[in-house]
């Protein structure tokens, strides 16, 4: 058993800093070694985008950027023996693996890749419903019936264990579909330290480490509200590294001479990111208690995290489904001094009048004043008359596509048929885009079984 492993965060979302995973691997050396790198690619709607891509092309449906990254880091991860774990396989981990094999072949490198399958339950929704699984919306309690015909994607969130199995079989790269972000980090700890599935404190420890790594630099100086002015060298911001020990303690740090900061405050901010009841952080692997976590700032960009407590996992997987829910469009105009806000508000009134006259119907029309109060609303202290320039953003959403198209046609005319000193209309008419809504549900764990395939090529 290893006495310590170091797991790097390489990507916090699909579209995160492209150089981050490359730098993490490049900067790894004897003084700042790495054993693993995790990369998170999946947000709630990502799966529906990937499902659409796969419909058009059976070889698509995964994070293409991931293959580019793997291609670039292949020589380094092989020579430094760094294992890569990622959920970038999306709805097509097989195709993702094959693309990685093709890239490796071009470089003359042999590599073992593991994939995790069966999280995608899109084709078995009806049989699940028939056998009594309700899949009702866990937030609203609504029955799936109302949206069944419009479902675009449906995936179960697997936890760490399928990844552990792939690592046991010797995979150097593990590609999953929908896996919890935290499972990507917990898995190597289970694998290396031989933790038992019912050692809930350890499961919780790895889960908390995963939560700290899963958003990339958000724990190492990015989006840091405590003291962003003190953060050094944002340009070369270092992504976080978890240095984990068999007893469940870990230290959050980053490579030396990188930018950013790892401090008690930076780690605490990430711990509070997107959580609900802190005593019940639920994953397929455990229920972690965030009120148990202790932090100790060791200085020099090192924070010790310890004393983490966990409770048994639930009997459910979370299911993430997406479905079509009409159309939306948005457009912007920029008004300037004098009376910028007065003009912007008048433009809104004119537009609404014209859309009403045209017989348009929307579920929602929203007008916001960017640069004035679009984010903080009534809390904004600036007087309207003091605003010298404002971007007015019009947005609509609804089921009637023609109304959305009509909306798009009525933005630009405001320039020549409304108040003066207006510009900023570029990029053509706003076009309707599909609204993809999110349907979270629960499913008994016994209803699906993950499948792991490890191959070398």
């Amino acid at each position, binding site marked *: 058993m290893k006495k310590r492993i170091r797991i790097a965060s390489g990507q916090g979302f699909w579209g995160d800093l492209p150089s981050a995973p490359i730098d993490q691997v490049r900067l790894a050396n004897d003084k700042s070694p790495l054993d693993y790198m995790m990369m998170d690619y999946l947000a*709630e*709607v990502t799966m529906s985008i990937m499902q659409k891509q796969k419909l058009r092309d059976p070889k698509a449906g995964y994070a293409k950027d991931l293959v580019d990254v793997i291609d670039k880091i292949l020589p380094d991860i092989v020579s430094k023996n760094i294992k890569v774990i990622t959920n970038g396989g999306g709805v097509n981990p097989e195709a993702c693996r094959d693309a990685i094999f093709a890239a490796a072949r071009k470089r003359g490198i042999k590599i073992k890749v593991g994939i995790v399958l069966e999280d995608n339950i899109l084709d078995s929704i009806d049989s699940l419903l028939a056998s009594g699984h309700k899949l009702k919306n866990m*937030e609203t309690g609504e029955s799936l019936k109302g949206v069944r015909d419009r479902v675009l994607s449906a995936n179960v969130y697997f936890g760490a264990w399928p990844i552990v199995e792939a690592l046991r079989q010797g995979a150097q790269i593990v590609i999953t579909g929908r896996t919890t972000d935290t499972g990507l980090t917990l898995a190597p700890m289970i694998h290396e330290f031989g933790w038992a599935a019912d050692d809930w404190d350890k499961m919780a420890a790895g889960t908390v480490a995963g939560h700290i790594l899963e958003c990339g630099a958000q724990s190492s100086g990015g*989006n840091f*509200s*405590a*003291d962003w002015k003190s953060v050094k060298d944002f340009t070369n911001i270092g992504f976080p590294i978890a240095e984990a020990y068999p007893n469940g303690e870990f230290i959050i740090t980053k490579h030396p001479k990188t930018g950013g900061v790892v401090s*008690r*405050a930076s780690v*605490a*901010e*990430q*711990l*509070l*990111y*997107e*959580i*609900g*009841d*802190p*005593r019940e952080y639920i994953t397929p692997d455990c229920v972690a208690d*965030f*009120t*148990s*976590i*202790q*932090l*100790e*700032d060791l200085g020099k960009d090192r924070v*010790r995290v310890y*004393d983490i*407590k966990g409770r048994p996992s639930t009997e459910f997987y979370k299911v993430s489904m*997406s479905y079509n*829910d009409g159309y*939306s469009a*948005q457009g912007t105009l920029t008004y300037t001094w004098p009376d910028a806000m007065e003009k912007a508000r008048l433009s809104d009134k004119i537009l609404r009048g014209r859309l009403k006259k045209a017989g348009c119907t929307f579920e*929602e029309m*929203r007008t*916001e004043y*960017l640069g004035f109060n*679009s*984010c*903080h*609303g*009534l*809390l904004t202290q600036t007087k309207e008359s003091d605003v010298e320039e404002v971007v007015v*953003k019009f*947005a*609509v*959403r609804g089921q009637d596509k023609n109304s959305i198209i009509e909306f798009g046609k009525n933005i630009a005319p405001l320039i020549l048929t409304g108040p003066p000193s207006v510009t900023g209309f570029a990029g053509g008419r706003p076009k309707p885009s599909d*609204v*993809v*809504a*999110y349907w*979270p549900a629960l499913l008994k764990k016994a209803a699906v079984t993950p499948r792991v395939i490890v191959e070398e090529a």
Partner: protein
Amino acid sequence: MKVQLLEICHARSGDKGDAANVGLIARDARFYPLIKKEITAAKVKKHFKGICLGKVERFELANLWALNFLLHNTLGGGGTVSLKQDAQGKTIAAAILRMEINVPPALLRKPTQKQKPSKRVVKKKGK
């Protein structure tokens, strides 16, 4: 002495469906009892008038010197459906730091002590 929360706290926010979560963290352990007492769910609800259209839930994390708030019905239907500029509630963290709080001047003046490792595990009970 009345100060903005910005002086004694930092924060981070994000989305949980149509709810925004905002973690409010004391800049030093000595400020935690004060925010725990003063920054109630009701006050946060009032502060976010016109932004948070649902209820506000509050959770305590004494171990992190922090309070976590869930602001329900705040994001215009949630990340993928929302027409809001801040569809994911990213700037709610900054917005909560606008709140004002009375701080005893002595507490404010006290220099920040270097944080010592806490030996006790803080146990919580009830809501």
